């Protein structure tokens, strides 16, 4: 796995290279992406992040209020690095009004449900629709069925997840933050699906207001 997590540090080389509205800031070998996690309350969004960033799991982790932020860098086989700036949102309905604040400009959206809860699967579909309407058009979306370790309590068939994801052009995976199953795979797969530097015009510095660039 990549290097440790941190709040993006002021002195980093990225300071001079803010990323554009639609997502990643890129130079040849280092990609920086904003990723947002959405999904029903208690499906394990924070646990997925914690597992990915710190390699930890806590069955009784705290309720997320508003949103929390963590980042993690991974190195791909072609020796590019991808730094995920992860916005982990609160799942409760009341906070849905704030969600646009977090998914605005996100290059990646990870929509999570709990395989033991059909309600959370419908909630996931709500988020997919919301992003299709209001997210950036080339956002990479992943549908994640979490708590895959609870096979005996499963209420959402793998098939359902696969089909829905396929229909909506999403990448689908089932994970377990508890056993760490497929967590790294999820983020590696996302990294592979990101637009490469060669695919995009480098307009990283062109879209910000002049006063920000001058600051």
């Amino acid at each position, binding site marked *: 796995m990549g290097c440790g997590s941190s709040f*993006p540090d002021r002195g980093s080389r990225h300071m001079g290279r803010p990323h554009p509205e639609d997502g990643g800031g890129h130079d040849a070998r280092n990609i920086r992406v904003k990723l947002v996690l959405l999904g029903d309350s208690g499906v394990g969004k924070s646990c997925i992040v914690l597992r990915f960033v710190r390699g930890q799991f806590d069955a009784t982790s705290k309720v997320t209020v508003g949103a929390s932020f963590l980042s993690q860098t991974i190195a791909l086989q072609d020796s590019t690095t991808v730094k995920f700036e992860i916005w982990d949102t609160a799942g409760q309905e009341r906070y849905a009004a704030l969600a646009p604040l977090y998914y605005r400009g996100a290059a990646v959206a990870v929509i999570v449900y709990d395989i033991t809860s059909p309600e959370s699967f419908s909630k996931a579909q709500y988020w997919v629709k919301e992003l299709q*309407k209001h997210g950036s058009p080339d956002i990479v979306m992943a549908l994640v069925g979490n708590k895959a370790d609870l096979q005996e309590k499963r209420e959402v068939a793998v098939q359902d997840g696969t089909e829905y994801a396929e229909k909506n052009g999403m990448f689908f995976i089932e994970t377990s933050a508890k056993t760490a199953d497929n967590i790294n795979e999820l983020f590696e797969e996302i990294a592979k699906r990101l637009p490469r530097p060669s695919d995009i015009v480098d307009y990283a510095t062109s879209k910000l207001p002049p006063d920000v660039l001058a600051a």
Partner: protein
Amino acid sequence: MKNDDDNNNNKAERSKDAAVGIPDSRFNQTLRNVQGLLKGRNIPGKILLSQRVSSPDYSSLSSPTYTRSFSYSETGTSGLTSERIEKQAQSSRKSFGSLNDNKLKVSASNVQSPSEEVQKSSFGARATDSARILKFTKVLSGTMVALEKLRELSWSGVPDYMRPTVWRLLLGYAPTNSDRREGVLRRKRLEYLDYISQYYDIPDAERSDDEINMLRQIAVDCPRTVPEVSFFQQEQVQKSLERILYTWAIRHPASGYVQGINDLVTPFLVVFLSEYLEGAIDNWSMSGLSSDQISNVEADCYWCLSKLLDGMQDHYTFAQPGIQRLVFKLKELVRRIDGNLFSGLLFFLQVIIA
């Protein structure tokens, strides 16, 4: 989409707020305090609390660091007397709610001379100081509790065993008039019991879909509340939290339960349970308490939570206008006090969020 419309409305509301509401006295007060802090002054509770004082008298502010160390050395030399005073104050702890004046006069006159000494030296010192305990006892034992005085005293901390009483008073739950206090509390606690049977102890079939959802959300969140303290992992504790939160949510439909409110109940629960449970919280168990005791604790939590949230319910209503307003004020404050920091932060946020 509806959300966006609402967001826009809020933005409009906010900028209106900016034009009209910002130069209010409270804001300027805070601004002055922060400026004072930046100039190396300390912010004592006195200033923050005395909004009615038009021009805060900075000259009267003593340096807490100085007085504190002074009072420590003083307690060191007169440790015996302080200890005695503390013991005396503690002996009245169980009954100070209903303490009669005579009893107080006796204990006060007993310690008159040493107390004066300590009182002088420990101005602004910590809650454990015996002189402070005496002051608290004095304020609390009158027929009418002077809330302003109590608030001022409480700023630098409330002695642990007085905290339940002080919080109930400061939040406006317990009446300041001691003659009425017990009766009002008894009535409020019964009222809570009523709510429980009316809203909580009913079959799901009698709940609306929204109510079921809310209960489900609360049930999901209670086990995830203060998970790092083992006491909160006890099922009875989580059930108490659930009842308090659900009752509050049902009674406040404009906001309902919102994640984050769970964290506001826990201090109340700990403080009011401390009247029944002793020692470290890790060794606490609610199983030894009678159902009356539990429901009284829950009732106190419920009413205090209600009082606390009354002043900031718009933090939890749709799109959280209250929080947005505060964030805006904070932004304004930073801009006025430190322009460089402000543009730095703005730049940073652009990079992160954009």
